[in-house]
């Protein structure tokens, strides 16, 4: 089937009449969305400055509150007095614009993947992905499901995997520590990797998301 068939009616091209009676052709996908491809942003050339900034990024992990699968249940206790992730500079944010970490917390159905990609792309560079549980690594117990992905890193670059089904909050804290270590070591450049291998990622995404009714990159 052609992808076009899946485009929702309100994103179809249409002709509207302007107040002066002039006819305007509107193609929502082009007119409503920015069509630019993402850019790779090189780190600051000053190493010392860059490592200072990386320290700040590492110590201030703002997590997008995006729960997929069963793992989101394990994220919630992080903020309770028992685990208190705030101590480590981890905070939850409700909007991707202000977050720099997205946690894919478990299996991803195709439908959710689309939203996850969109949210990931709306975050600003540098941004980090944490994948939780077996499902994101090899599909886990849903490896043969008709509608869940098997390997997350084919669709977005993953910085840290946390194994388990499901991992406990302690494991998550350990994951955060690992992520901090990576960032401080200057290895948290996956956002640039995504931009550089954009074609490959997009091809993989488009392979399973058949109703691709959004621009290639969601700004």
């Amino acid at each position: 089937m052609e992808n076009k068939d899946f485009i929702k009616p309100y994103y179809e091209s249409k002709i509207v009449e302007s107040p002066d009676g002039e006819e305007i052709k509107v193609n929502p996908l082009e007119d409503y969305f920015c069509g630019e491809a993402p850019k790779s942003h090189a780190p600051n050339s000053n190493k010392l400055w860059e490592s200072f900034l990386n320290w700040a990024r590492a110590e201030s992990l703002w997590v997008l509150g995006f729960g997929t699968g069963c793992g989101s249940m394990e994220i919630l206790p992080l903020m309770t007095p028992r685990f208190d992730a705030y101590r480590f500079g981890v905070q939850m944010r409700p909007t991707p614009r202000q977050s720099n970490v997205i946690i894919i917390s478990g299996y991803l159905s195709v439908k959710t993947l689309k939203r996850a990609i969109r949210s990931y792309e709306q975050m600003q560079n540098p941004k980090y992905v944490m994948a939780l549980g077996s499902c994101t690594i090899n599909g886990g117990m849903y490896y043969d499901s008709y509608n869940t992905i098997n390997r997350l890193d084919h669709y977005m670059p993953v910085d840290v995997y946390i194994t388990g089904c499901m991992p406990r909050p302690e494991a998550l804290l350990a994951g955060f520590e690992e992520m901090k270590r990576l960032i401080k070591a200057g290895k948290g450049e996956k956002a640039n990797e995504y931009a550089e291998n954009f074609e490959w990622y997009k091809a993989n995404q488009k392979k399973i998301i058949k109703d691709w009714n959004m621009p290639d990159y969601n700004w």
Partner: protein
Amino acid sequence: MSFDWLIKIGYVLLGLFIVLNYGLLQYGVIRRISARIGKRIGVKVYQPYIDLIKNYSFRSQITHGVMFYLGPVFRLSGGVGVFLFMPLIFGSEHFSNYSFSGDLILILYFLFFGMLGMALGAGEGGHPYSFIGISRGLSQFTTIELPFTLAVISLAIQYHTFSITDIVAAQQGGIMHWTLMTNPLATAAAMLSFLGMMGNSPFNVVIAPQENPIGPPTEYHSTFLAVLQTNRAILGPVEAILMVNLFFGGATNWVSLIIKSFLVFFWPVFVGIVFPRFRVDQSIPWFLKLPFVLGILAIFLI
């Protein structure tokens, strides 16, 4: 050629620097205290610095248009402007900023400058939640200001002046001369208003994180957000300093200024931790009840 103005600017910038750092630390401390109330350990005291640096260190930004870009500038101008027109230390010529160019009324109205810019910037973001947040904020603000206006008028009757410096001067000479003691009704009305002005719970439906992702600044990120954070770090303490100046005898040195304003600042935080959130149509009548009546009494009983 006199270089007085240069020295003046130098002191103003120094004051701004102190207030900014004080504000950031204050937020850290407050967050840590509120974490303790929740039996948590809480963030590091210097976490606001890290967040600020982190936000300035984002490598990419997006913009929805010119007004979106200018919104944070307006906001920060509002905050810094209020600071600039606010006398900080009583008796100190250097830390009176530009308070000689306008009185209390100027500060009251300049508070709106940032609000307006922020609202417009967020509006250009085009996000529905921004509009909802703004409409809630503006609606709520109408009655928040009312008791405060009454308190200010009451002060003007009491001290026969709108000049903050003169109001502070009239309160010198011990705690019994503070407005708190001489005009407790006005103080009460203003402090209740202050709860709303600071936007903490129960009056934080504007940014209501769960139902309405943080309201107006939904679309703001990276450097824009950093500018907004900077503003928050300045405006919060400055508003507290305003209260200190008006009702708590002002301050003759930095130490007493910081202690007093911290305590004033802590008051809405304390209330916010204890009380749940109001809807707009609950908070508007709330301000029209006790605070409003207190304000009217303050006018007629002074």
